[in-house]
């Protein structure tokens, strides 16, 4: 009997000690800009997205590590064959942070609010595939079906971004279903989140999640200061790290930095193909020529860009989709080869000729053009300077121009007074539908030639058709085929000359347990409910 008591006591001490260790602590990190809203339906900016991730409860969540969709507040779901309807079976016994019970009514309320045109919700826009109203049908308190007027591509995946709001709580968006809730907010300085006592998740041992008591988020725009604070152990995480800082930390404390491999982000350059641009006719002819663009692409040493500019923490880009996007990347595409000789031959076949080290077109115009990039971005400035030397080898003289971002955007979207631009694209979503605004020729973000009334080339018309096919189909195989073909056309025509895919670099303090950085945001705290502090 005494032995049994001793065992129980020992077990209780062990549990108590473990429980205490899990439940304590405040995680600290920085956001670079202030969140513009705490309303999960109005979120647009990156910081607000991060806060929504930490506080919002969603029906389905894309596992940032496996990229697979997993049930959260929904126990199961089913998408109709036509891609217009989705039916959820919901978890029961779940409450919002203020104690209000969660039911299908809340899902219906959230969807109706989200799709209200007056709200202008960027999250809602992803579901707007055709004219008409969205219908919600509450089958039971734990079952609901939502019907859209037209098929929505990747319908279930879009719910990763939809944080459910309470239909009845007086606290509205401040009543949440996620692991944390807003505790204190000092504008421009700090946001403190505290654990949601009603969060529904438990770990394998039955302990309530999250482990952390609170999260302190400092608004810190300066990345140098963020790095210094990390080195002084004033913050625990850095979500995205510069390759230079990564190497500096790695030399002294390699266990603190993580290279999760190629991210979804791309760095690319493109030539101005706008017919009404104020460029000389002969330059327009160069830039409209796929052979010219291919030759430029071939003359760029992407391996060097990755190795030198990003210190090996980047991969030469293959096409529009990073290999990190496991499902949508077209694995049939071959890496782009670097060959100045082949590039020069291709240009000579097009009528260009090399005279005294200068490449000239068939009319005798020296091939000179400028490339603009945003000032202050050291990596892009260095890439441009390296490309300058690469192109010099085939007799092309490149002028590197750095401009402040508003001036660059004005030239890119208003005056079209530029020759080539180098920028990056931060891809947040995995689904090709997220790139519709880039690939459709009628889109304003179709950078090389925006807002075309009708596609100006046959290959752009084909891309338009394929993007619409993938966006209107619920058949994943058919969608994949269409988007694979888009990638092939993009690589063949080179409207964008893709340069590198940067690796996802992050830093995590040794005091943080359970961190497993990934390539998709939020890289270091995607599993925040399972993070704890030593």
């Amino acid at each position, binding site marked *: 009997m005494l032995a049994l008591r001793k065992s129980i006591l020992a077990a209780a001490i062990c549990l108590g000690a473990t429980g205490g260790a899990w439940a304590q602590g405040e995680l600290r990190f920085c956001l670079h800009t202030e969140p513009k809203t705490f309303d999960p339906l109005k979120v647009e900016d990156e910081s607000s997205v991060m806060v929504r991730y930490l506080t919002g409860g969603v029906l389905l969540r894309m596992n940032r590590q496996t990229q697979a969709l997993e049930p959260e507040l929904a126990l199961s779901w089913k998408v109709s064959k036509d891609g217009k309807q989705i039916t959820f079976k919901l978890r029961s016994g779940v409450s919002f942070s203020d104690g209000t019970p969660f039911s299908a009514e809340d899902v219906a309320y959230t969807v109706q609010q989200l799709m209200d045109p007056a709200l202008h919700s960027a999250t809602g826009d992803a579901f707007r595939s055709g004219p008409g109203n969205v219908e919600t049908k509450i089958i039971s308190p734990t079952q609901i079906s939502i019907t859209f007027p037209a098929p929505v591509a990747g319908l279930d995946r879009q719910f990763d971004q939809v944080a459910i709001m309470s239909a009845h709580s007086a606290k509205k968006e401040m009543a949440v279903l996620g692991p944390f809730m807003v505790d204190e907010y000092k504008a421009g300085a700090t946001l403190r989140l505290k654990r949601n006592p009603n969060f529904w998740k438990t770990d394998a041992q039955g302990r309530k999640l999250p482990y952390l008591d609170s999260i302190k988020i400092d608004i810190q725009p300066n990345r140098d200061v963020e790095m210094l604070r990390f080195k002084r152990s004033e913050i625990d995480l850095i979500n995205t790290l510069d390759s*230079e800082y990564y190497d*500096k930390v790695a030399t002294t404390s390699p266990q603190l930095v993580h290279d999760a491999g190629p991210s979804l982000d791309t760095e690319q350059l493109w030539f101005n193909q706008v017919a009404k641009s104020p460029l000389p006719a002969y330059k327009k002819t160069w830039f409209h020529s796929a052979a010219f663009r291919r030759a430029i692409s071939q003359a760029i040493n992407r391996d060097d860009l990755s190795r*030198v500019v990003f210190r090996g923490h980047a991969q030469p880009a293959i096409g529009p989709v990073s290999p990190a996007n496991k499902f949508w990347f077209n694995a049939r595409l071959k890496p782009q080869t670097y060959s100045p000789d082949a590039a020069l031959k291709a240009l000579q076949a097009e009528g260009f000729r090399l005279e005294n080290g200068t490449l000239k077109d068939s009319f005798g115009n020296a091939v000179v053009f*400028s490339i603009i990039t945003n000032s202050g971005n050291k990596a892009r400035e260095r890439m441009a300077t390296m490309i300058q030397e690469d192109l010099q080898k085939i007799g092309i003289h490149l*002028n590197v121009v750095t401009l402040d971002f508003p001036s660059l955007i*004005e*030239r890119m979207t208003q005056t079209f007074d530029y*020759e080539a631009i180098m920028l990056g694209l931060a891809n947040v979503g995995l689904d090709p539908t997220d790139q519709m605004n880039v690939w459709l020729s009628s889109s304003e973000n179709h950078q090389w030639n925006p807002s075309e009334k009708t596609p100006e080339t046959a290959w752009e018309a084909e891309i338009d058709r394929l993007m619409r096919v993938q966006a209107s189909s619920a058949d994943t195989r058919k969608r994949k085929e269409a988007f694979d073909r888009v990638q092939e056309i993009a690589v063949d025509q080179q409207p964008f000359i893709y340069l590198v895919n940067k690796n996802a670099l992050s830093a995590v303090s040794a005091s943080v347990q359970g961190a497993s950085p990934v390539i998709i945001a939020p890289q270091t705290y995607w599993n925040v409910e399972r993070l704890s502090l030593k």
Partner: protein
Amino acid sequence: MRSRRAVIWRWLACAVLLFVVGISLAANFIAPAGYARQYREVADAPPSHQHWLGTDEIGRDRFARVLYGTRISLLLAPAAALLSTLVAALVGGLAGYLGGGWARAAMAVTDLFLSLPWLFLLITVRAVMPLNVSPLVSVMVTFVMLGLLGWTSAARVLCATASSLRGSDFVRQAKASGIRGVRLFWIHVLPNLRPVLYAQFWISIPVFILSEANLGILGLGVAEPLPSWGSLLQELEGLVSVGSEPWKFVPLLLLAVVVTAFQFVLSNQEELAA
């Protein structure tokens, strides 16, 4: 005794300046690889036999870039300083000499210039400039802009000095002797403004060098691949990374040495003149 020591310091400062100018002009022979060649296999390398000051982030020889950058900055920063000092002498000196309504009008214009948001104006100027300009032209444009915009503070100082000279005994005596107008300004006022002009000139040089560095961040400075002290000093951004790489401080050290040498030349000239 004091003036003899001053002469020694002056000659020492002149020797330093001549040495710096000399080696920068001989950059083609000392660093024949040039400032633009990229040794990509040894990017961001520490000092070695091949690269005395290591290489920059994309593998360019830092020693060569320092030499060529010194040449550009030492030729163009004084040129810009000269331009701004001349404008300041014209506006401030004449305003102070003429006095009355002229001085008030000139100082109003100076105040207006001082109050304008030059940063945004410079951004606008860069935004409307043609894109296909050679790096050399971009350098010239940068320093001309600096020279044309950097005269205001000096003009106020010169105006005050010229104003005080206007009421001095020797000017009154000259006027009584019948000397007037441009001749009076040229013979009696301007020589007495010389120490202030010198001071403003030397002070402007490091200011323009640093301004060029700041403009570089906005895309208004010297275009790649041409180096300048300004672009070389940009390597010092982010103190986290510099502590363990002291050789990156060489451009800063060189700037400090050159500016100090300029100051010695200036102060000793004033002393000798006195």
